[in-house]
């Protein structure tokens, strides 16, 4: 029982982390139709900025300032790069952001070196929140989950309950109309892009200390974030949340399971045959855990191409 409880908790927290990064990506896509390949790079920048600031300002200020800096970078990227490419169509935007992700990764390597840096959870936060059947549960994990939940609520309220949210949401569907009503749509786009980048930066600043801060972190998380956004439905905030949790929890449960397809076949008397065939049939679920998200993505794309809660095809 404790095992399953732990697996669920672990999965939820990991899912919430995925949400923190994918929230910005899905927001930007929903708003501007840009699939931003450089998004995970903002996550990495957040971690490195916080690592750089930490000795100067302390941990707390660092994780507040780092997202602000990343937002600045995001705004510059939107204003001086993306806006110029926008008129040439989506393919160009995709290529530009892809190139940007490579440039950011190489610049990080030049400045901070090729290996992981020693950005760690500060000692005062490094304690066990509770202990269950002999395993400590790190407080920092709960802290990360808490930040993600606060973030989700804040974005949700901002988009649905404020005037700004109304303008943003309408700019998604009818940009010309919103512009005709006197709103500065390019400014709105720039703001959304900046906030999306800041969210990823915050995730990086918080998670970089817990996992590792290295020049590959964008690549490692980037793929998973795309899976989340596709499964949840491009542009859907709720969908991103649902998909993140789904992927986090299935992954966590799968790791703990020794289930094999051969075991299932034993029930209908074909166990011996399955053992003989081997291969996929005798592979343990636990060694396939990291592949499951892609399997989920495949299923979703086949059965419901717009994603769990997406509206756009």
């Amino acid at each position: 029982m404790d095992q399953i409880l732990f697996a669920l908790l672990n999965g939820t927290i990991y899912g919430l982390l995925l949400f923190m990064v994918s929230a910005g990506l899905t927001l930007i896509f929903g708003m501007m139709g840009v699939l931003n390949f450089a998004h995970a790079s903002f996550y990495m920048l957040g971690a490195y900025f916080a690592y750089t600031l930490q000795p100067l300002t302390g941990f707390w200020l660092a994780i507040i300032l780092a997202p602000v800096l990343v937002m600045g970078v995001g705004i510059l990227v939107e204003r001086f790069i993306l806006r110029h490419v926008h008129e040439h169509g989506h393919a160009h935007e995709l290529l530009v952001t892809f190139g940007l992700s490579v440039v950011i990764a190489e610049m990080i390597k030049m400045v901070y070196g090729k290996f992981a840096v020693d950005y760690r959870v500060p000692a005062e936060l490094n304690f066990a929140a509770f202990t269950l059947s002999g395993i400590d549960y790190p407080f920092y994990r709960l802290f990360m989950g808490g930040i993600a939940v606060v973030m989700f609520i804040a974005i949700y309220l901002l988009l649905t309950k404020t005037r700004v949210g109304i303008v943003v949401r309408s700019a998604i569907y009818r940009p010309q109309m919103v512009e005709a009503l006197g709103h500065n749509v390019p400014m709105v786009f720039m703001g959304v892009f900046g906030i999306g980048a800041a969210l990823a930066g915050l995730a990086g600043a918080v998670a970089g200390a817990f996992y590792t801060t290295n020049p590959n972190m964008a690549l490692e998380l980037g793929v998973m974030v795309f899976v989340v956004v596709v499964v949840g439905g491009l542009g859907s905030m709720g969908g991103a949340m649902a998909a993140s949790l789904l992927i986090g929890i299935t992954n966590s449960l799968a790791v703990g399971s020794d289930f094999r397809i051969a075991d299932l076949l034993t029930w209908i008397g074909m166990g011996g045959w399955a053992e003989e065939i081997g291969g996929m049939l005798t592979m343990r679920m636990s060694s396939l855990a990291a592949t499951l998200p892609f399997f989920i993505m495949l299923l979703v794309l086949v059965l419901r191409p717009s994603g769990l809660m997406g509206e756009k095809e």
Partner: protein
Amino acid sequence: MGFQKFARGTVAMALVMGAAAAAQAEPLKIALVETLSGPQASTGLLYRDAVKYQIGKINEAGGFGGEPVELLEFDNQGGPVGAADRVRAAISEGADVILQGSSSAVAGQVTEDVRKHNLRNAGDEVLYINLGGEAMELTGSKCHYYHFRTSPNAAIRVNTLLDGMNEAGVLGDNVYAMNQNYSWGVDVQDNTVAASDRLGFTVVEQTLHDVNKIQDFSPYVQRVQAAGADTVITGNWSNDLLLLMKAASGAGLDVRFGTAFLDQPGNIGNAGSVAEGHFLSAPFNPEVNPEETAAFMEDYKSVTGHYPSYVEPTTVFGMMLLQAALEEVEPTEDGLNAADLAVALENATAETPMGTIAMRGADHQAILPMIVQEVSKDAQYKADDTELGFVPIKVISAADAEQPVQDSCEMKRPG
């Protein structure tokens, strides 16, 4: 008129120089086919530093056949596909020796390509010197006459690690084997299980997981805890090792890790005190034979700008074996006859700061001393500017570290 005269003179000059060059032996070309760009480049660049360092030494000592040895660099971009392409390019540019080290998956491709090339081009063979692909199959079912491994393999790593930990009294009764799901990880797991009877421990559970895809290791740590393990033996490297150790420490798990690649730069810096007390078995430690080793460390630093660590010392030692073999070979008209070099390399030995290393003729596996070491604050040379470093616990001589030739190796010798 003036120009014509000048042109004629230049052409004549070029002809004379060309003839002069042809009279001399062609310089020996060594090709490094490594991951020099992309996410896994950090290790590939270390191989490059070490190879450059030792080729510099070879050239200082007179090169080969009176000519300096030329190093060609090819970027395999981290995958077998890129490697296959780059090996072809290297051979067509006249490389006689191919060097490669990071990833057994890439090594598997390179060794097959070299074997096929040599089958089709008898008399114009190339050598493959495997600097760090440690999967067993490379000197087992895939072994062939022109492949030489200068690094340890999975059996040497695991057995020396377990012996050292056992003797230090930290191995415990219950061992968990946690590895990456590919040739190397499977080999580490198999060797751990195989050693359990000899050393009297129980392998409580074995897990193979995806390679460098997992961010969150806490579910795996939970399994380790549930299995009641005292020690985790893992061949994991890079992020898979770091995240696993950090997750275990976060969960307050009281297990000791026995590893093969904990000395990768950045690991100790990132893990900090989490790494303290964990074990490593590697062919180098800066505190063994302090006098000679310190000289080597300082010289290496003066050339490359940093102390040798991780794969660098082993690579330098491997290149020493190559140097020793080259000294035994007479250059022919077209430079180097690779078959002659293979004969010399089969019997090569080299004196390294860690002791004598030798190539074993039967399967072309280097036999080298291994050092079982522990992460501790008492270390003389600190890693990554932290207060921690690697303290040698036990030096295992080359003879004791040696593992039997695998039955699966059927090496066809020429002639």
